[in-house]
């Protein structure tokens, strides 16, 4: 194998080089801009992470698994996974192997960007095929075939997306269409170009037969150069369209993995980390099917993928419209193959709108928890002042009692409070009822509405109240409270559990025993409990001991929001009703007698629309307690 074209240059590489130069300059500027918007503290964190071996390992693994092999998509649908992986991994390998060939055969051309891309044009095969040569020829044809098969599947998906497990796909924009046309033509053109030159430069199982085939009816070599021109032009155009198309995710995604592994979070809705997320979106459209709102076709334009597209286009009106409407159920985030935290971006966007709203929570200074009636449950040395949470309050001495924090919404579902307190008594759990007479909101609703500053005051107050109780364990009934207490409160040393977890522990410790008499049921996993707090196993564990647990159409992290979510600001009651019905339909596919949930909001929302009883896990447990202690 040696150089065929003296000087290693031909004019047809120009389109490619223009595209390549453009994209390098573009990415370089974008990178600088992005870093400029990352808070300095985060920037330092990022650079430190690059030398941390543990994170380095994570980065490599994630880039391989997510960017190249698309493992997440594989898990979802094999064909869809293969489609993504074949193009990404195949292309990547073509580049790698191309470079290796160059290094091996024409090391003098090292550093020429275009050379490995158009390698087959510039070289010619001399003498007999060596084993080494045959190996590379084979690899190159193999990966080209792999990519081509992926492209073929992609074309097929355009027409029949359901075959790949997708009911709905994203509507491409103009730049997407241009880039897509280029992308689809790049590899067939490369196949043609390499096939035409296979007589000179050699080839393997794919290109050689193609060469012979064409040689039958193509008399001369005049078609070779135009084909290479076409190939180069397709590549060049693709690079030019790249920043304006969904394919920008190709360079960005890997970078996002680095940022994410460094522990960075969204601070601004459009700049910095968020920008990396925005450009990492491949517009694959998995979030469209994931979104519970899309039970109604009219809500399709409110899917996360379009939210991100409008963010890229700076369309503020649409951005606000979508971010206000989103339920924040987190399902699109859970299913996103790139792991884009679109809910976080939406929250940040709401912050730009609502964080400046003035509030007056000065009354909180006088707020105090009213422990369950009897004064004897107060430890002797806690002064009323301490309970009042006034300035003189000091952390009370530790107590063995658990603190029960029902939360605002739970006060609308008295069945939860009644059953859970009975379970406390049955199991001999001593507890202090923090908000028996109503308490202070946990702050999560404010955070969800983008009012972080207001939330801070509420959080500070509640932290003080919880700490002043002296309890080392807080049991919560509302997953909304649980999530914010875990994530935003500084309650080090205090264990925070949802009542599903608490009941599970009671059962495993044998403090209560239950009979398997609850009949058949299905479990609805509340958004904030499952996707929000990662609590999936405990409720199922409890319910399995109570009766026949039926499957729902969507479970676990794919559980469908009940429609009552506090996350959405503008979704109408009618539209919420449709979501509730959709969610109920998914829950009742196997016709359970009852629906069990573990969130007061879900309980109340479902109860209004369900054709069968909806109960909280605390109730179904309490009903089936057969012996105590």
């Amino acid at each position, binding site marked *: 194998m040696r150089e065929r074209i003296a000087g290693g240059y031909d004019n047809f590489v120009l389109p490619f080089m223009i595209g390549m130069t453009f994209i390098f300059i573009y990415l370089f500027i974008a990178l600088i801009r992005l870093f400029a918007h990352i808070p300095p503290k985060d920037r330092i964190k990022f650079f430190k992470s690059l030398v941390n071996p543990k994170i380095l390992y994570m980065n490599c693994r994630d880039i391989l698994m997510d960017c190249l092999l698309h493992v997440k998509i594989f898990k979802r649908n094999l064909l869809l996974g293969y489609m993504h992986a074949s193009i990404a991994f195949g292309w990547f390998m073509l580049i790698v192997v191309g470079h290796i060939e160059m290094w091996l055969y024409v090391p003098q051309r090292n550093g020429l960007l275009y050379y490995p891309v158009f390698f087959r044009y510039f070289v010619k095969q001399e003498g007999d095929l060596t084993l080494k040569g045959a190996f590379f020829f084979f690899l190159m044809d193999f990966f080209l075939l792999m990519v081509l098969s992926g492209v073929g599947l992609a074309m097929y998906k355009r027409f029949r997306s359901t075959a790949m497990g997708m009911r709905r796909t994203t509507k491409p924009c103009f730049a997407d269409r241009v880039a897509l046309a280029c992308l689809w033509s790049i590899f067939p053109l490369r196949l043609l170009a390499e096939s035409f030159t296979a007589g000179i430069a050699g080839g393997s199982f794919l290109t050689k037969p193609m060469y012979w085939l064409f040689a039958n009816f193509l008399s001369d070599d005049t078609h070779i150069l135009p084909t290479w021109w076409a190939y180069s032009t397709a590549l060049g155009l693709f690079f030019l369209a790249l920043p304006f198309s969904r394919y920008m995710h190709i360079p960005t995604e890997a970078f996002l993995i680095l940022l994410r592994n460094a522990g960075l979070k969204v601070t601004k809705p459009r700049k910095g980390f968020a920008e990396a997320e925005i450009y990492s979106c491949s517009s694959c459209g998995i979030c469209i099917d994931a979104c519970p709102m899309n039970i109604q076709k009219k809500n399709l334009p409110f899917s996360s993928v379009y939210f991100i597209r409008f963010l890229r286009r700076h369309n503020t009106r649409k951005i606000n419209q979508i971010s*206000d409407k989103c339920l924040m159920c987190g399902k699109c985030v859970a299913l996103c193959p790139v792991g884009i935290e679109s809910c976080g971006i939406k929250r940040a966007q709401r912050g730009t*709108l*609502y964080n400046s*709203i*003035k*509030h*007056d*929570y000065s*009354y*909180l200074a*006088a*707020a105090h928890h009213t422990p369950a009636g009897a004064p004897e449950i107060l430890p002797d040395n806690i002064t009323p002042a301490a309970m009042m949470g006034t300035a003189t309050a000091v952390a009370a001495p530790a107590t063995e009692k658990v603190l029960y924090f029902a939360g*605002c*919404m739970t*006060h*609308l579902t008295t069945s939860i409070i009644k059953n859970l307190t009975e379970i406390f008594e049955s199991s001999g759990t001593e507890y202090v009822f923090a908000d028996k*007479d*109503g*308490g*202070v*909101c946990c*702050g999560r*609703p*404010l955070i969800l*509405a983008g*009012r972080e500053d207001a939330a801070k005051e*509420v959080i500070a107050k509640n932290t003080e109240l919880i700490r002043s109780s002296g309890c080392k364990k807080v049991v919560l009934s509302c997953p909304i409270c649980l999530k914010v207490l875990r994530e935003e409160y500084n309650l080090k040393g205090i264990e925070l559990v949802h009542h599903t977890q608490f009941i599970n522990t009671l059962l495993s410790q044998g403090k209560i025993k239950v009979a398997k008499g609850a009949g058949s049921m299905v479990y609805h996993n509340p958004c904030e409990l499952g996707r929000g707090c990662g609590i999936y196993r405990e409720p199922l564990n409890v319910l399995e001991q109570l009766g026949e647990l039926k499957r729902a159409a969507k479970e676990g992290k794919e559980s469908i929001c009940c429609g*009552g979510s*506090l996350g959405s*600001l*503008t*979704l*109408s*009651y009618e539209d919420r009703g449709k979501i509730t019905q959709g969610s109920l339909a998914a829950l009742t596919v196997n016709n359970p007698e009852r629906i069990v949930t573990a969130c007061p*909001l879900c309980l*109340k929302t479902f109860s209004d629309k369900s054709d069968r009883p909806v109960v909280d896990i605390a109730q179904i447990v309490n009903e089936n307690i057969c012996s105590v202690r």
Partner: protein
Amino acid sequence: MGKFGFALSPSSRINLDTLDNVKFAHLIEIEPDVLKCMACGSCTASCTAGKFVKTSMRSAILALQNGRNEEAISLLKSCLLCGKCTMVCPRAINTRHLIISILKVYQ
């Protein structure tokens, strides 16, 4: 008070003739649910913040309709957005968004 030791007392009357509806029209555009209130008072009765300080969605809507914008703000600025009122409203008013919108439009 001047030399008389008394003065004209300000009218406590609601004067709809002098009402400026521009902001209210804007509010309706953002959150049309404001028109649906039938003043049942469920929101006020269930209010989390209302336990500590007078907080009332119903009174705030009425205050806006009567041109008492300051009063409306003072009735809502204590709101914690917990959403209980949304759950209890018989007219299914999107109270949280309405509250945010009122605070935003009138502040």
